[in-house]
């Protein structure tokens, strides 16, 4: 046990050195801001790893929570750019409104907007989750409902062009809490915030996974009925994982806005929501670091390939879904574990498990 936590500490130290010490000096400003974008996507992946990898909740609607966090932050930044009492530029442009809509007003206050980026997604997840899990709607039903939520949210945002910017979304931000976003120094600052938050979320996810709650979550994934008969309420266990994942996605969305400079419906609908999942699947859904590395790798491959060969990228993405999920359900993390096990045989014979559906456990 002690050696494990020592290894985890060392792992975090290496991660911190890479993110804070190496990347800012090795990469150009442009590459660094791209990395900040990937790291934001990786935050969503940490949450999906928890909910799907550990809890078996295939959530195909993380874009909704990402979007709620992103729009909350973007609305605040728009209002801050416009100045007190003024309307954001796009509302004046469309000219449909005489005054700021009531639900925009509280976001002018950072003391409301900042917590809202996390709490709003968590609230929505809590409402949907408690309705759905308590009635034992699960498995594929839950996946489809979460996907329908993403579709509904994107359609709603597009339909309300006057107040949400419609298809264009919210973009063209000047300042981030008084700092000029055009200044490369401030872009670096945003990157550092993103990297720090990602490490924090990883620490939270690790603690959750290794706690008694984490054990319970895996138990619910593998045999919900048995957990119920042991006296726990599986609905609550799932709800915690779902709400946590939603909060992480909301935070990711909130940081995505200053890092990338845009939030729009195309970033939160069905397709981006399911793209969050593929990174997690590639990296290894049940491991801690797998989702992060998978998400960064897939996002990087997407930017590199999709600009030059858009058709080839779509084929590759489709093949990734098919091959990884069908034939390597544990993702790359299971390959790493397999190699490690081959190099040094375990002291005691591994217990025979009847159906290794997903990579059973990750202890690092």
């Amino acid at each position, binding site marked *: 046990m002690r050696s494990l936590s020592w290894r985890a500490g060392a792992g975090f130290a290496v991660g911190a050195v890479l993110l804070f010490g190496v990347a800012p000096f090795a990469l150009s400003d442009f590459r660094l801001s791209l990395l900040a974008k990937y790291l934001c996507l990786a935050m969503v992946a940490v949450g999906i790893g928890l909910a799907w990898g550990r809890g078996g909740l295939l959530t195909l609607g993380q874009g909704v929570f990402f979007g709620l966090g992103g729009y909350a932050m973007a609305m605040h930044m728009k209002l801050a750019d416009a100045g007190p009492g003024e309307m954001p530029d796009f509302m004046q442009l469309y000219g449909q409104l005489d005054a700021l809509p009531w639900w925009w007003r509280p976001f002018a206050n950072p003391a409301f907007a900042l917590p809202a980026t996390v709490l709003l997604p968590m609230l929505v997840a809590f409402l949907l989750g408690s309705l759905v899990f308590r009635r034992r709607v699960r498995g594929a039903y839950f996946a489809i409902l979460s996907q329908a939520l993403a579709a509904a949210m994107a359609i709603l945002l597009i339909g309300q062009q006057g107040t949400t910017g419609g298809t264009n979304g919210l973009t063209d931000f000047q300042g981030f809490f008084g700092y000029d976003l055009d200044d490369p120094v401030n872009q670096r600052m945003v990157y550092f915030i993103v990297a720090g938050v990602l490490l924090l979320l990883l620490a939270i996810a690790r603690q959750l996974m290794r706690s008694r709650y984490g054990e319970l979550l895996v138990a619910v994934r593998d045999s919900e009925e048995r957990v119920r008969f042991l006296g726990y309420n599986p609905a609550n266990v799932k709800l915690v994982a779902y709400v946590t994942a939603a909060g992480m996605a909301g935070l990711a969305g909130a940081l995505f806005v200053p890092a990338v400079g845009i939030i729009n419906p195309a970033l939160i609908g069905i397709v981006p929501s399911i793209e969050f999942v593929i990174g997690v699947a590639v990296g290894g859904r049940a491991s801690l670091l797998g989702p992060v590395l998978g998400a960064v790798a897939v996002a990087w491959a997407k930017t590199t390939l999709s600009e030059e060969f858009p058709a080839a990228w779509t084929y590759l993405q489709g093949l990734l879904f098919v091959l990884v*999920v069908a034939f390597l359900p544990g993702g790359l993390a299971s390959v790493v574990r397999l190699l490690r096990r081959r190099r040094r045989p375990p002291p005691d014979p591994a217990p025979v498990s009847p159906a290794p559906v997903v990579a059973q456990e990750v202890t690092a």
Partner: protein
Amino acid sequence: MTVIVSQLFTGVSIGAVLLLIALGLSLTFGQMGVINMAHGEFIMAGAYTVYVLQKVITGAGWSLLVALPLAFAVAGAMGVLLEFLLIRRLYARPLDTLLVTWGVSLILQQLARDIFGAPNVQTRAPDALTGNIKITDDLVLSNNRLFILALALLAVVALTLVLRFSSLGRRIRAVVQNRDLAAVSGIPTGRVDRLTFLIGSGLAGVAGVALTLLGPIGPTMGTNVIIDAFLVVVAGGIGHLKGSVIVAFALGTLQSLVEYSTTVSVAKVGVFVAIVAFLQWRPQGLFTLRTRSLA
């Protein structure tokens, strides 16, 4: 009054389209528990069948008639291939099936883009289906909507007859109700699965033919309709066709009425909220298959 009646007709015709799309799903998802995200692309394949066929058969009426069985065959063959190559290996992992078939749907969409081009294409509708039937001055029913309604009802009746009276239907129901018992009774469950998938996917092809009457067709046409169709099957309940039929028409009507009083986007959200609320009341859908499993 006529406004309400004409909105109701719109709702019923939206429901008919939903039903045609959901009917195949209620077989593959409802009966077999397979979430096939590529179902939307089978619809697309059916629609492009009409497009290709019209290059050969110029008469719009004949091409439509030939397209119906041909699209069934094309989409059905794609479905069988998919089942044989991938889904067969994933029956124990329904959620993974969802992701794998999503990948397949991405590949099929890109294939369609490479073959037919990214922009939408238009097919010709037969003259007989372009007109309207005037009931009163305000109430006008369009022929193509009526045709789709008839097609949907025909498909429901045919499918019900097959499931209820044919030997294949008996086998399908047996496998749904108890796979192990069916297997020891000598039913080749693997082959029954494949045939079920053939019929379900073939119905997607037929739905694709119907969609060509309503508008242009394109590589992403399947994605736009598939979620609604899944919601229909979820709310309708597993293992029963009548659940899907009732829910499809109910949702169509609800959407058309909400749409009339607000906007399209609000209607979509309204439908979603209605389904979540409905599942509070009936978590397993409208009709459930009674089994001894804990639910």
